[in-house]
């Protein structure tokens, strides 16, 4: 199946996370939740965060969007683990964008991910 995807558009990392995304799902009683959406891309990303004291114990996500959006949300859910709650407000998704990578015509996905994480820093679950 991997062979059938255009390698110029979808890296192995994007495909792996799209097919079987680590971090996908939700908690019954999350400590924090945050969502962001993009009407133009018909996408929405939400994070659920479970805290251990003032740090993120675990994060999960739900996403509707293009494969890169789903892959970025998956990568972000893993990157959040261990971060201080106050660090979420200034979460920087640049390394996720370059690591997957996300193509130049979709760099707004970075803002979507950062907005959703920022929202999670402010909203109780």
């Amino acid at each position: 199946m991997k062979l059938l995807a255009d390698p110029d558009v979808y890296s192995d990392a994007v495909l792996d996370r799209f097919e079987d995304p680590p971090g996908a799902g939700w908690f019954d009683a999350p400590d924090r939740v945050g969502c962001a959406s993009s009407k133009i891309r018909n996408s929405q990303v939400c994070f659920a965060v479970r805290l251990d004291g003032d740090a993120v114990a675990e994060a999960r996500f739900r996403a509707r969007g293009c494969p890169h959006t789903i892959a970025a949300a998956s990568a972000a859910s893993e990157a959040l683990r261990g971060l201080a709650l106050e660090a979420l407000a200034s979460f920087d998704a640049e390394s996720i964008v370059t690591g997957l990578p996300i193509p130049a015509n979709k760099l707004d996905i970075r803002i979507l991910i950062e907005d959703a994480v920022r929202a999670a820093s402010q909203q109780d679950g």
Partner: protein
Amino acid sequence: MHDHMVYMDYAATTPVDPRVAEAMFTYLTPSGIFANPASSHAMGRAARESVETARAEIAAVLGCAAECIVFTSGATESDNLAIKGVARGMRKRGQHIISEKTGHKAVVDACKALEKEGFEVTWLTPDEQGVISPQQVRDALREDTTLVSLLHANNETGVVQDIAAIGEVVRDHGAAFHVDAAQSTGKLPLELEALPVDLLSASGHKFYGPKGIGLLYRRKPEPGRRIRIEPLQHGGGHELGLRSGTLATHQIVGIGRALAIAAEEMEEEVPRLVALRERLTNGLLAVGDVLLNGHPESRLPTIVNVSVAGVEGESLQLALRDIALSTGSACNSASGESSFVLRALGRDDALAGSSFRFSIGRWTSEGEIDLVVERFAEEVRRLRELAPAPLTA
């Protein structure tokens, strides 16, 4: 790799029927009939005879005289020749054209090019089922209208227009009526002498012929009704001066054979395809929150277009990459816009962007339909489960 894929993109193009390929081969090699059909020697005459036999075969299928068929490189060229040719040729009579927002790019862009030359185009919008009524055309006709150009069957939704009724309206007015029949030729019966259609475009590769060959039907002049076409390319005066360029004998033989086979098999093939289309439509809609785009009955036997609520188009396309199909998704399109055809039908950007065209054909089997429905259901379910709740369409 191709062994793992199911081909559901017959509306984009079809494979060449092996019977057609075999017929074409005779016209390519040194031992075959390869000479220039315009040459006066015996080998040239043999090639010319083959071209004229194919022309007559096509004319017989389409119900018109052989001299009404002009060979082109495909429907895009035929559309350009018909639209630009008639508009420019009839310029003295008027500069108003009527077309549709949901036309194929070849029709829309040819009309837009004329707008830049000073022509005025009225763009008709179909109703929510994709249908353009004769009354809409009647209302749009003006004294200075010289041409009406519409699709017979829409290439995205498969919706079939009532060209007989629309043609009567255009005929009463006196303008020329051009129909792009790229999707319907070889799938729906056409009796052109009996239809009030002046020009009709078709492409060989949509009905199991080769790519790179098409035709333009041009009605014979009638008393008091002469449609002047200005050619687009000059040199040699082939095809009654309408389309200069050495005739591609093998391609012409190919399109002739392909259309003859399509006509011979239509009586059996169309009911088979309709049954497959219904099986596919019912299977896709049974997944839930899947909407059929276009008129439920007045459509081709070969196209099913659906919008899937609650999922994003590019993701579903990637998830279904073992199926060759077309999507209205905008994610990677140069324009950044989802299907203009579906938006014209009133679908919002999200539903237009999550639209999928499944198009079936000669080698589609019931087993493939069932496999596609199963894979579609599986991936829609997975992507919806991944999405935030509640679903927003």
